[in-house]
């Protein structure tokens, strides 16, 4: 039994917002995107906070007439009745296969977006292939309430059975992988989607700690480091807790600023941009060091800037802009998310992707 306050803000019914910690934005969607595990049913948004072990989601209901159809499956019949009847507090009942499926789907999609893989924090990357396969199966369990009428087809279109097939002979996870593969084959037939199955080759373990690059030039004249904003880079590119480091060196009479950023486990490439003191530096992935690195000569005029603007901003120009505001809550929130991910690896209800990662299986 979980208690939730119910508010009505303009024409929107908001379930649970008062439970949010003081100091969160006055918006009725106080959950930071990095913490939000989301499902989009007809007429509403449901979101779970990944840092709270609560069974029931927060919700904003914008079309109660549409939501009435499924609300009882998520909060229980009496709570649904109370929500639609104007109550300002509800007691949600647990236990419903649909609630479990919705929550499972929300968490898988959260992991797809925000799983903080990191060498430094020892959080292995999840297999994107396994995640997509599990997402498709979970989507099918709630297809009757989703806003997107083609959600299952869309999810199946992203599936490649290769990573699932590669697990089918695994002593611990094999049975579950076989079930998942069979379930997806059945779904694909019911929805008229032809599943892809790419051959998956075992790859050498990619789990050695990344080594830092050695400076070839003279001693650093100046330097610093800063975290990389998760919102400025796509999933799986940059080590979730890695910090961007810069240093200014003098080489053959010229001043050069060099930047490196630790790459996430299993990264396959990509280009980042670092901006510091007005200089823009392209960073390329170096598979030997596990770093994104780059350097650029600094015109004399910029040297003065470097002494005052010492913060390095890193972003992926194909993903974000540099105009990401500095969020003072980010370090604490991100540390909590990393701890959560670490805990998920050993959780009783861990997904196949999480358990495979915990066992060190390297599936794409």
């Amino acid at each position, binding site marked *: 039994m979980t208690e939730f306050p119910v508010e009505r803000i303009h024409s929107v019914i908001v379930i649970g917002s008062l439970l949010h910690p003081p100091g969160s934005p006055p918006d009725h969607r106080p959950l930071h995107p990095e913490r939000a595990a989301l499902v989009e049913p007809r007429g509403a948004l449901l979101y779970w906070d990944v840092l709270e072990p609560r069974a029931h989601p927060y919700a904003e209901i914008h079309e109660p007439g*549409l939501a009435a159809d499924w609300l009882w499956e998520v909060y229980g019949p009496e709570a649904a009745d109370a929500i639609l009847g104007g109550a300002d507090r509800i007691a949600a009942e647990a236990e419903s296969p*649909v609630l479990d499926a919705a929550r499972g789907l929300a968490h898988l999609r959260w992991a797809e977006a925000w799983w903080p893989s990191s060498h430094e924090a020892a959080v292995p990357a999840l297999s994107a292939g396994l995640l997509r396969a599990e997402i498709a199966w979970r989507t099918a369990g709630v297809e009757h309430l989703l806003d997107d009428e*083609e959600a299952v087809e869309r999810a199946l279109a992203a599936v490649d059975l290769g990573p699932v097939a590669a697990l089918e002979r695994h002593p611990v996870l094999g049975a579950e992988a076989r079930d998942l593969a069979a379930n997806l084959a059945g779904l694909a037939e019911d929805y*008229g989607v032809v599943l892809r199955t790419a051959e998956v080759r075992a790859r050498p373990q990619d789990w050695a700690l990344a080594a830092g690059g050695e400076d070839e030039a003279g001693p650093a004249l100046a330097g610093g480091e800063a975290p990389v904003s998760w919102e400025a880079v796509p999933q*799986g590119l940059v080590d979730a807790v890695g910090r961007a480091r810069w240093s200014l060196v003098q080489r053959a009479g010229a001043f050069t600023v060099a930047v490196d950023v630790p790459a996430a486990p299993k990264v*396959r490439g990509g280009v980042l941009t670092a901006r510091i003191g007005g200089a823009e530096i392209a960073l390329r992935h170096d598979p030997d060091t596990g770093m994104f690195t780059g350097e650029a000569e600094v015109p004399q005029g910029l040297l003065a800037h470097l002494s005052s603007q010492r913060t390095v901003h890193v972003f992926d120009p194909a993903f974000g802009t540099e105009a990401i505001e500095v969020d003072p809550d980010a370090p604490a929130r991100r540390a909590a998310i990393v701890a959560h991910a670490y805990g998920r690896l050993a959780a009783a209800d861990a997904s196949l992707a999480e358990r495979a990662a915990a066992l060190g299986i390297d599936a794409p």
Partner: protein
Amino acid sequence: MVQGIAPSAAVPRGMLIADAWAQLGDAVAPLSNPSGRPLARTVKLLLDPLVLRPTLNARFAGGVIDVEHVDELRAAILDAGPVLAATATWFQLVKKARRRAGITEGHPQDLYFQRCFELAHRYGDPKSMSGAAGVAAGAVAEVHAERGSVTVNRLRAFVTDPERTAELAGLVRSAWEARPDGGAAAPAHAELREFLDTCPTAPDERLWRRLVDERVGTAEGAGLDRPGVARRCGLSSRERPAPPEIGDRASKRRLPRPFDRSIMERLFAAFTSAFHRESMGDIPALVVGEIHRSAAPWQLAEEPSRITMALGREASTGIDYFGGRVAASAAESRLQARWGRESYVAHVLRLPDPEASGIPENLRDDILIMPLSYMRRLWARLHGRELRREATEADGVWDLLDGVLRSVILDQRDRLRRTLEREGGGT
């Protein structure tokens, strides 16, 4: 009374259906999802149109059912139990036949659910009949033969037949010469806003009929021939719409804007996406019809389609990436709210920022200037409905207007996601 149903005045329809469905047991599992609920398409294609018929039985319509009709609704589903169980078994057989025939096109639920229901009525449970597999194979062959008669290859052969090209080009010419002079600006029609105010919740049927009778959609389309108007609506890249080519090729990628599409491209786009392709006319009639449609206001043939375009133009003005416009109608306000939610959802899903410099320009434009993407999709939807001879009525307008925005948004999400795959990140 079912356990858990509070003794209130009304009960959620979804709960009643789920409860009755559960009583039908494993026999209907092939029509159920992994949570044991009827599939969305089981409700849409079987329970609603063939068992509950809410359009005829108003007491079974809406999100909640009055408590006095609860038992009746449950009984309607339980009574249909044997035929639904037989439908489920037929569906299994039909899927097997489809697999054996090597057919992969089309959505099996869309294509076969209602056919299986017919088979269940005609033959009952296939388990107690000999030759059921043959009947299933025959049904599959029939469905695909009906669809197959209107194929892209036949269309291409028809429009590129050298003996016919001059004649078809002549038809385009005469159809466009006969167009009324559409130079005048459309007068403002306040009734459009009035209808947009009611259509999401209680569409005003009388007002809709008046819009049709007074040909307001046609009048609203008159201004599209003026310089830049069709371009600013997203319907053309040209300064003024020009007569279409007949065309001889088409590809689903990179279709030009609707008014710039050749006759071939217009029909091709509808062929490849259409469920119910079998309800379209034959090729020569389709091509001639398309030529005449191209010369009509909004390049659509039916007045309700044209009114819907005018409504869409009015309601989509406020779907602005940068926000700020005060909605002028209830429909516009709801569309704005859907678009407003998307910015939060896009963050939660960690999609790329459309303003990032590495995002392809056409994708960025499509997202930053939503009304244009919206109008293109709305036109394509209405065009497809005309080809399939689906009437557009007052009570279906909001689903169309809202569904178009949903579909544009979901496609844009997919496109943003694909830019990440090209990037080659770790996952």
